[in-house]
């Protein structure tokens, strides 16, 4: 008798903040296949952006994801600046970098915490979220909000970092370093975490090249891809920092990469604060001429990509977004399949999935029927029902 079972996780599951549905096909304790269903969180942001003016869109794309709330606007404004050939003052570039790196620190702390929570190791969760608060304090002081910063603007930034804020941030940075040391100690030296994370969900370098993962997920498999270095933007080309990689490809490597990246982020913030030139923060562009442009940013989870086409009016006529989780989701096929069901949760969490980012429009095409190129909802339901019937038959139920 076939022992395969399907274990659904979601769409509403206590482990997840967002609705998403994983179907794990298990044989005994081993995961043999998995299927991801997204779309619960699809809001139609690309379409919404086409109804807003260039200055309004940053507020919309900021709300794609609360944790990457600087990454999306940053990628978007760069796309518009490329389309319209708009100059950005140097001080604004530094401010963009500082905010983006502060976001990376709190996002990685958040991941370390959630990973601890998924492992049933709530001490790590409570710790890292406690130490995330000082970063949020800094963000609140500088930008006025804990999460949605609204700092990015086409042509510059909305708010300056005042001299007293510079002092305040520099004052709090030793505290951040101390906390990061603690987290590093917790991750690198803890025998429980070693036992749970090492050798789990291994993605080799070849696998990563094939699946095309981005961000810390790929860097943990020894692929040193980082847009900040490969195609410098903002002030990343002007300051000194290193790309962190780890060769092992398991969940432990992903944790190590993220923890060490926090040190790099702190280094970048510090250097930017000291190097930041005086001057204008906004070039105040009045119009965006016709054209098209792309912008990307290395978000905490990987490369965020925005494409904007302008026809000379005050709204983009096309806005396309690709979020990092979209590229990282397929890596599950290599990392989760073959793992035990008990490790599945942490492997699923290891890419730091962010579904609110990922939920772009998906078009399912009929195979080989040119008269009906696009499947309707009913088609999908029928397909799904057929699949269930087929599986039932296969399982002999």
């Amino acid at each position: 008798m076939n022992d395969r079972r399907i274990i659904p996780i979601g769409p509403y599951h206590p482990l997840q903040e967002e609705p998403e549905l994983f179907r794990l096909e298990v044989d005994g304790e081993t995961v043999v296949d998995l299927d991801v269903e997204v779309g619960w969180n699809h809001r139609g942001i690309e379409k919404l952006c086409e109804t807003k003016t260039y200055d309004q869109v940053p507020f919309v794309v900021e709300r794609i994801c609360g944790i990457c709330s600087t990454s999306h606007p940053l990628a978007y404004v760069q796309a518009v600046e490329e389309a319209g050939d708009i100059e950005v003052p140097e001080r604004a570039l530094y401010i963009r970098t500082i905010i983006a790196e502060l976001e990376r620190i709190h996002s990685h702390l958040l991941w370390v915490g959630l990973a601890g929570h998924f492992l049933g190791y709530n001490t790590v969760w409570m710790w890292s979220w406690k130490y995330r608060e000082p970063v949020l304090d800094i963000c609140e002081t500088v930008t006025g909000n804990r999460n949605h910063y609204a700092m990015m603007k086409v042509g510059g930034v909305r708010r300056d970092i005042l001299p007293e804020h510079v002092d305040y941030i520099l004052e709090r940075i030793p505290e951040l370093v101390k906390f990061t040391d603690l987290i590093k100690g917790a991750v690198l030296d803890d025998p429980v975490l070693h036992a749970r994370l090492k050798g789990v969900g291994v993605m080799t370098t070849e696998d990563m090249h094939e699946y095309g993962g981005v961000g810390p997920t790929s860097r943990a498999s020894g692929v040193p891809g980082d847009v900040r270095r490969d195609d410098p933007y903002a002030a990343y080309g002007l300051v000194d920092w290193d790309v962190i990689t780890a060769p092992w490809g398991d969940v432990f490597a992903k944790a190590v990469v993220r923890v060490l990246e926090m040190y790099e982020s702190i280094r970048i913030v510090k250097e930017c604060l000291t190097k930041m030139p005086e001057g204008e923060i906004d070039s105040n562009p009045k119009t965006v001429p016709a054209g098209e442009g792309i912008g990307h940013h290395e978000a905490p989870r990987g490369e965020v990509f925005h494409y904007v086409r302008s026809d000379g009016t005050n709204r983009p006529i096309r806005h396309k977004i690709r979020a990092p989780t979209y590229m990282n989701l397929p890596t599950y096929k290599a990392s989760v399949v073959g793992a035990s069901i008990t490790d599945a949760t942490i492997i699923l969490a290891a890419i730091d999935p962010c579904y609110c980012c990922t939920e772009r429009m998906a078009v399912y095409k009929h195979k080989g029927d040119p008269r009906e190129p696009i499947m309707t909802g009913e088609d999908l339901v029928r397909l799904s029902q057929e699949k269930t019937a087929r599986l039932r038959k296969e399982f002999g139920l």
Partner: protein
Amino acid sequence: MSLKIKALTKSPWVYHLCAGGSCNNCDIEILDLLTPRFDVERFGAVLVGSIRHADALLVTGIVTKKTAPLVKKLWEQAPKPCLVFAIGGCACSQGLFKDCYTANPVPLDELIPVHAYVPGCPPKPETMIAGIVKALGSLVAK
């Protein structure tokens, strides 16, 4: 005051429901409530894994067409009385995503009864605590 209301006000167990179109920020801030800086567990509020154990439902995000039936079903499964909190601008008034093609034509507060609105994008954890305390206060006053 019935036993259930007494228990509810003393220690509200909450279930967190991301109604669909949320940017995840309110969800993160809700989790933030449980961590050491704010630590609502000292007031007896615990995040539970099943709606059937919950005294209060924290809803974030707009209701999308895909999740509307699920939200309705979850509310039907909740043991009553169950307080519903609309957390954040999206849950309160559909906010920014009002005109999206995926937004459910029936907003959250017409789909299920909402007892308290906590606006903000995202509301600060202090605001959420204040909202919960006020809603519980109104129950005691009844």
